[in-house]
């Protein structure tokens, strides 16, 4: 059963010609077809995928194939793809066909990966449950009554159900790590600037970062190797060399200093989550790591700080959706003002409108200093906390989320309770640091629990090594939802 194999293993099988890419595409397309109830995909283009697969098979037959040759993957529908719709989960872009590929898409394609389709997501990446999509909510493969997390919930559900071996996601406040955690997967949010944002529909520009959602840390390393690197078309892209992540995986953990963030292990933390994260930490201790208690005193300010900065940037980023050049345009308008108002009223969902309004307010004359500027000051404090902590340890750990996957509809009427689900992940985006979420166990109802490991700037290698070493001695990452087996 090829879908039970990791991306890395499938890559080896393809290279050894034990399986062909075309066969893989048929296999996964069939699985996607049979599990449409998950609503993990917005667009699937099997014909296009088969075409790519045949090219890949030729490359594989010819010898010296590119690193991802023939491997079927999916892209979060926030990445622009030529020849396949890019909707961003919104009615506003429901008919949008991009004339260009995002840098991430282009790089993965150039490395031989086969794009099977585009995954469902919270509208414009605004949400933590993948319920705000214009295309309907995504279901968690571990329990279809529950959310897969968000905003990259379609990617996480697709990989968890093994509808595809790996997928891209984006993370602005936890949107890779939280769904990875809810779906029992490995999710990496790289350092801000490590992966190009060109062609990634912007939500909050200073926080958005693309990354992989995979079954294993080894797979994440394989994906990141291709996704990472300087892009002259993204001014915030970091012009730093990309290390050999496959080599990084082999780093030993002896002497590694792991900081336990006291604020993340609050007494109110769910006892199952607490127990499993601590159990994972003792595994890491057995591998030679040392645990140190550290504090991030300004953590509590993370959510309010984020919910000023992200909506402020979003309010401006989403101004381009005006019905003038592309995307949805209202059919009823008498003048220009009505064209704008009706187009945006019809094209955006409630959560997107809420954030645009909050952000517009935060940037308005008379409020700018009190909200936006203050939030920037707080952001600096939060980043300083991390820098401080990372002088005494190499990485920081805690649970990825305060709860396991919640019920569909459980938090939709209370946005703040939804926002609070990102309490452990959001500060990492504010600081621009890399972080990895790993599966470390299950709660009594069988829902996955994730642990977050936060590293220093550009030190994705250490995070991947921790994940890989941990996965060498544990099997949480190998567990699959019932249907998959």
């Amino acid at each position, binding site marked *: 059963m090829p879908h039970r194999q990791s991306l890395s293993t499938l890559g080896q099988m393809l290279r050894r010609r034990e399986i062909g890419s075309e066969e893989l595409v048929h296999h996964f397309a069939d699985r996607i077809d049979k599990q449409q109830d998950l609503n993990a995909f917005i667009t699937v283009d099997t014909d296009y995928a088969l075409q790519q697969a045949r090219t890949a098979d030729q490359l594989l037959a010819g010898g010296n194939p590119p690193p991802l040759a023939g491997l079927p993957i999916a892209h979060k529908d926030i990445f*622009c793809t030529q020849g396949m719709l890019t909707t961003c989960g919104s009615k506003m872009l429901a008919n949008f066909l991009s004339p260009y590929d995002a840098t991430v898409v282009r790089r993965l394609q150039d490395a031989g990966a086969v794009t099977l389709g585009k995954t469902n997501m919270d509208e414009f990446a605004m949400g933590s449950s993948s319920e705000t999509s214009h295309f309907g909510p995504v279901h968690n493969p571990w329990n279809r009554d529950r959310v897969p997390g968000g905003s990259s919930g379609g990617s996480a559900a697709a990989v968890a159900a093994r509808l595809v071996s790996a997928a891209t996601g984006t993370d602005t406040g936890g949107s890779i790590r939280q769904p990875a955690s809810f779906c029992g997967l490995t999710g990496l949010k790289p350092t801000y600037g490590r992966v190009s944002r060109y062609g990634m529909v912007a939500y909050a*520009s200073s926080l958005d970062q693309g990354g992989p959602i995979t079954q294993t840390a080894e797979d994440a390393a394989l994906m990141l190797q291709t996704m990472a690197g300087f892009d002259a078309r993204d001014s915030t892209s970091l012009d730093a060399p990309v290390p050999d992540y496959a080599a990084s995986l082999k780093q030993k953990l002896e002497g590694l200093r792991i900081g336990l963030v006291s604020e993340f292990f609050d007494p109110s933390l769910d006892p199952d989550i607490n127990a499993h994260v601590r159990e994972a930490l003792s595994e890491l201790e057995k591998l030679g790591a040392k645990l140190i208690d550290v504090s991030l005193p300004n953590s509590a300010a993370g959510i309010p700080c984020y919910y000023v900065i992200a909506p402020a940037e979003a309010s*401006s980023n989403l101004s*381009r959706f005006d019905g*003038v050049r592309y995307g949805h345009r209202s059919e009823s308008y008498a003048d220009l003002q009505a064209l704008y108002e009706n187009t945006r009223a019809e094209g955006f969902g409630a959560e997107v409108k809420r954030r645009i309004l909050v952000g517009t307010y935060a940037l308005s004359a008379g409020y700018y200093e009190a909200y936006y500027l203050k939030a920037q000051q707080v952001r600096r404090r939060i980043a300083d906390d991390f820098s401080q902590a990372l002088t005494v340890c190499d990485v920081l750990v805690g649970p990825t989320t305060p709860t396991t996957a919640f019920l569909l509809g459980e938090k939709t009427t209370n946005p703040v309770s939804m926002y609070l689900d990102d309490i452990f992940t959001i500060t990492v985006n504010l600081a621009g640091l890399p972080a990895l979420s790993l599966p470390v166990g299950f709660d009594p109802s069988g829902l996955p629990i994730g642990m977050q490991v936060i590293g220093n700037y550009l030190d994705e290698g250490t995070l991947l090594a921790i994940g890989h070493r941990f996965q060498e001695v544990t099997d949480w990452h190998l567990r699959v939802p019932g249907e998959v087996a």
Partner: protein
Amino acid sequence: MTEWETVIGLEVHVQLNTKSKIFSPTATTYGAPANTQASAVDLALPGVLPVINREAVLKAICFGMAVGGTIESHSIFARKNYFYPDLPKGYQISQFELPIVSGGSIRFEVGDTHHEIRLVRAHLEEDAGKSVHDAFGRLSGIDLNRAGTPLLEVVTEPDMRSPAEAVAYLRTLHTLVRYLDICDGNLQEGSFRCDANVSIRPQGQTTLGTRTELKNINSFRFVEQALDYEIDRQIAVVESGGAIAQETRLYDADQGHTRPMRSKEEAHDYRYFPDPDLPPLLIGDDLLKEASAALPELPDNRQARFVTEYGLTVAQSRQLTRDRDLADFFESAVIAAAGDAFEVANWMGGEMAAALNRDQCTLKDAPITPVMLGDLVVLMNNGTISGRIAKTVFDAMWQGDGSAQEIVDLRGLTQISDSDALEKTVEAVLQQCPSQVAQYQAGETKVLGFLVGQVMKMTEGKANPQKVNEILKRHLAD
């Protein structure tokens, strides 16, 4: 009767003549078919990002150096948010709190008075596209070719006291940006656009009156007209007991008046904030060195040099340096003229200026090159042709008949300096004009001019006038 004082501050949008747009690699050629110079970035497609054009930064630095401003080592691009169909992103990328250039000044003379207008700042920003309102019936068209064209907005202190002074400032700034080769200066194409802030106050009052902002003025003449109109309007309002409303007014060149566009209450809240897609613009020594190396001699310095190096009058050198092409032409022609700056300046101020003006021709398109003019001066100075013949040769060159030497050779215009030949002509003239000879000998020496003229006429102007004079005087003294 109250004596009113006018207070004017100007904001000029200088379109930088870079090869590509300020945040995208799209070309900036003017006049291309609509929307053919609009890439994914200019169209603000989802996911695109801006990248600052280094050339635009260099040009802004050159400007800052030329006006003696501070080049900020750290400046910030900000988003100015508003909705308009020709603004694709729904925001304009500009600079708000920290511009690339702070301070500096523009200096000029009006008659004998020296003026110095202080600059507040000069900042980089992108232009919007154009809305086309009358070509598609009740629909509007959008042309995004101009979207993303780099602009340098140059903002003055409210230092000007009359429309004439404002115009003089604009002309000086216009000369400067063309000198620096950072702007093509084309007013018709909108490469140099002006907004004016104007207010009035009683003479002697130090606080500023309420100002209005005049937009959409795209010629020097219109600036003066718009300001004249607006000042009269403001005085009339105040003198009839009214108050000036702080508002933006549009200048209508056809009607010759200004009319309200929007009031302070209707003013946009642009919700400026630093653009998270663009890191702070850091200017280090390398960029400063590069800009400094690209900086040409500035008009003021060149004017002073023309006085000392070439011995021109201040008026002549001011005239010749008001335009970089003109000054370049002059200096090349002086070299070709073996250093006779005085004669070259005379020709350029006289025949050349007249011909250019008559044919509405620019110096670059003129049929006479600096070398051709220099050669003409050489032929005159070495006695090959007389000054009078030189004018004929100039006209022939202007008509495209060839170089000065070719024309002289072809038409046999070489000056007659041969004494024997001239002696005979003089003798003939003296015989024909006995009454004038008598007048001269009776002391009316001014008839000499008439006699010289007769000799020149007989030689078709080719006689060397000095020699003719000499020979005539000798014969008349006999």
